[in-house]
């Protein structure tokens, strides 16, 4: 394996030449990405564009077929376990144990992450996601929206500087969506670097400092939010992902 040059120090996430092959199919074809500290990056793209694959590679769940990733300056080819402490992922799968209560789930993950003063931290994070009253309810009995909130609680329990949200509002009814939005708004303040993938163009533009469009495993558009014309963005999106290709 070739040694790669170290990443620029102020990028929270740096990815170069990421490729991923599944069987006979390219999921990602040479993706380059750079995310600064505290930046909120939104990744748009149709189904099958490779958004989830990209997020999973950045979150160390999947190894790329080729390419390099640096998180907070550390190359993931080295000791990924150390880097994992600095990140977390919320996807439409909750990672929760249905037969355990919300409290027990959080305590489990808290211990796996080695969080000190666990009891207090659990209560704090439960309050942030407005689940204090449900702490001792079994996770499997919660509605989708509540489970999503519990998943967010699980993700921010160890206060990671980097947070990945893979379609965080997918599959929720309108009321649940608005609560989750509120929570994400309060959770994603300050220094946290956030990467969000979404289908929802309007919503995504509200969330991000920078936008990226992924199509067929490649970055086809990238711009800071302020340079993007909200009204015309849909045309841009269609042009980048739609007819003619």
């Amino acid at each position, binding site marked *: 394996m070739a040694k790669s040059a170290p990443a620029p120090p102020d990028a929270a996430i740096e990815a170069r030449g990421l490729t991923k092959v599944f069987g006979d199919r390219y999921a990602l074809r040479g993706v380059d990405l750079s995310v600064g500290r505290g930046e909120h990056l939104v990744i748009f793209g149709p189904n099958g564009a490779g958004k989830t694959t990209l997020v999973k590679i950045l979150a160390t*769940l999947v190894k790329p077929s080729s390419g390099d990733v640096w998180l907070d300056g550390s190359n993931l080819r080295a000791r990924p376990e150390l880097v994992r402490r600095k990140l977390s992922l919320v996807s439409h799968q909750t990672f929760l144990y249905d037969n355990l209560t919300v409290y027990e789930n959080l305590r*489990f993950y808290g*211990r796996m992450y080695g969080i000190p003063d666990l009891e207090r931290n659990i209560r704090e994070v439960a309050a942030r996601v407005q689940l204090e009253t449900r702490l001792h309810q079994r996770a499997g009995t919660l509605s989708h929206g509540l489970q999503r909130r519990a998943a967010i609680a699980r993700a921010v329990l160890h206060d990671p500087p980097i947070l990945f949200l893979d379609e965080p509002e997918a599959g929720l009814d309108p009321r649940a969506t608005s609560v989750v939005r509120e929570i994400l708004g309060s959770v994603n303040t300050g220094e946290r670097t956030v990467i969000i993938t979404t289908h929802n163009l309007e919503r995504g533009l509200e969330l991000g400092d920078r936008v990226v469009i992924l199509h067929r495993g490649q970055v086809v558009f990238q711009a800071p939010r302020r340079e993007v014309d909200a009204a015309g963005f849909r045309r841009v999106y269609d042009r980048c992902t739609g007819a003619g290709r």
Partner: protein
Amino acid sequence: MLGQVITILWKDIQTELRTKEVITSVLVFALLVLVIFVFAFGIGESPVNEVTPGILWAALTFGGILGGNRIFAVEKENSRLEGLMLCPVDRAVIYWGKLAGNFVFMLFVAAVVTPVFLALFNLPLFLPALPPVILLAVAGFAAAGTLFAAVAINTRARDIMLPLLFLPVAVPVIVAAVEATGLVLAGRPWGEMLIWLQIMAAFDIIYLVASTLVFEFVIEE
């Protein structure tokens, strides 16, 4: 690291205690195997002979396989295995956590099935030489079984794959366990059993080490 292994173990014990589905079905299955084998060999009222220890180990082996399938199946729901893989721990910690759960689980099954077995054959229930045999054999089953369960769950024929992988490899443990148990039931001195215990211990250590080293290659995507 040990703390995290225990955390995973405790989580598995807690989840199982909530439903008790797997433990009940495996226990019933193991007892059924006992009974069926007695009928199959037509040895209802016969005295203890060479076949007898094999019946116990057939029950524990097949019960172990049934339970083994569940080890990682439970982590597939809600993508919990991904949740575990996100944690800042060596992949081997996940192996040891699941291994510990599997080991405790099978030990529990053995603790119930063995006295039933002994009673069915009118053998004395207090046999101090038997627990070491069971411990070493179950450790071997757990060591190899946990690794193969992780492989099997990711194939298309997940239920059949575990026995296909596990049984040939487990042959030395099964042979040693049956031989040692036979010696115990026949009231032979400890010394004669020693070589079989050593074989199982060697298997256990080799497989624990080997599985620890290769486990990360199995669960990475």
